[in-house]
């Protein structure tokens, strides 16, 4: 029955999401060859660097692609990620319970819950720092001094670990709350939306554009 399901992620959003996931993992794996010493042999010869640079270019193109496919969606995502109200702060205070799958009695949330917003916000910040430091190490070589190069390496490293930890958490929540099908089909169950995103559901029903 159509009423059981609510449309949540557009084709553009899903494509962007999976492209980001693909490039992130390709970059993380080829990058870690240079950090995780037992894997260092895999970096010899330079093939992993070529792969790293190809996916770096893909990663850099993603915001452009997002803007072309869904400018309004991109704007809303960035705005929402950095806007928090009182309910969001109360929601974040309950994050430990949410981590353990206890999603009842949570402060009402809109399209995104405060955890998702915070995740997006940190990913956006990490995207900027890893891109700037990476570009510096790639194209800025010999333009900056050794000190700036080492600083860029620090930023690139720390951002990598932060993003990996965020990704571990992201995947964890996806499977705890059975959210994978949403990002595959675009639809989530109405039950889930009622429980976790009542504000968003009300908004959808009001405007009646989301079926």
């Amino acid at each position, binding site marked *: 029955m159509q009423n059981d399901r609510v449309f949540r992620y557009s084709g553009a959003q899903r494509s962007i999401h999976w492209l980001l996931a693909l490039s992130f993992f390709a970059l993380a794996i080829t990058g870690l060859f240079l950090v995780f010493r037992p894997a260092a042999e895999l970096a010899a010869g330079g093939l992993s660097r070529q792969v790293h640079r190809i996916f770096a270019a893909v990663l850099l193109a993603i915001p452009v692609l997002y803007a072309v496919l869904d400018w309004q969606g991109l704007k809303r995502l960035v705005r929402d990620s950095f806007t928090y109200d009182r309910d969001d702060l109360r929601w974040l205070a309950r994050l430990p319970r949410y981590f353990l799958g*206890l999603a009842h009695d949570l402060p009402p949330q809109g399209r995104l819950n405060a955890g998702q917003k915070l995740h997006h916000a940190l990913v956006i910040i990490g995207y900027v720092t890893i891109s700037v430091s990476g570009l510096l190490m790639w194209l800025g070589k010999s333009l900056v001094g050794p000190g700036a190069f080492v600083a860029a390496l620090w930023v690139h490293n720390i951002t990598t670990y932060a993003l990996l930890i965020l990704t*571990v*958490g992201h995947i964890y929540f996806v499977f705890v709350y059975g959210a994978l099908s949403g990002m595959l089909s675009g639809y989530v169950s109405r039950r889930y939306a009622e429980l976790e995103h009542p504000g968003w559901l009300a908004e959808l029903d009001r405007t009646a554009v989301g079926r």
Partner: protein
Amino acid sequence: MLMPEAAILQDTSLCIECQACRVACQLQNQLPPDVSYARFQFRESGVFPEVSHHVARLTCQHCADAACVAICPTGAVYKGEEGLTHFDPARCSGCGYCAEVCPFAVPTVKADQAVRCAGCPALTADGQPPACVQTCLAGALSYGPRAQQLLRAEQRVAALRRRWPNANVYSPGGVGGTHLIWVLRDSPEAYGLPADPITPAGIRVLKDVVQPAGLLSVAAAAAISALTFVVARRNARRVLTEHADKEG
């Protein structure tokens, strides 16, 4: 058996600019003719007729506190027992980090490989001088215990000072001292050498603290998630079912 710290002494006042050291290096390392681990910088200073000509054979300075060794992600650049910096091309990923952090801007990268002095590990492990030293016709290059080499350098400089008042021993402390010691007739700048090179800060902390701590944090996050997953998944299902029952 512990090898004593060794050093190459490079006396610019004796160099006849034949570049046989470069050719010996290319043979030793089986390099094509257009690739070289040594670069020659020629500088002139003064006004005619008081003109000086200086030649600097720029190659690895074998810093004691070597930034390239610290930063190399694959261990392709490493220190030998004798203190020279060695290089194993087979382990090189061509990342070029060594080229970026070298205070003397010596290494370069070509075709996904660092181009840099290998320190002739096969020779020095045997107690023999590196190939460049072995071939030097003019005796401008020599190899031996570092303390002795420093003493010899001081003596040479003292003798040179009669004609070259700015003559000096160049083995800068900012990089922990070097295992390639120069006898210069004039200031380092006159040779195009940095007056006060320093090893960039923060490389060791990045490699020895930040990277292991970062990897460990990611592993810890994954371990905690794996431990709580089953409970959390069961809770989430229960809460959703209870909610549905309540709503009818």
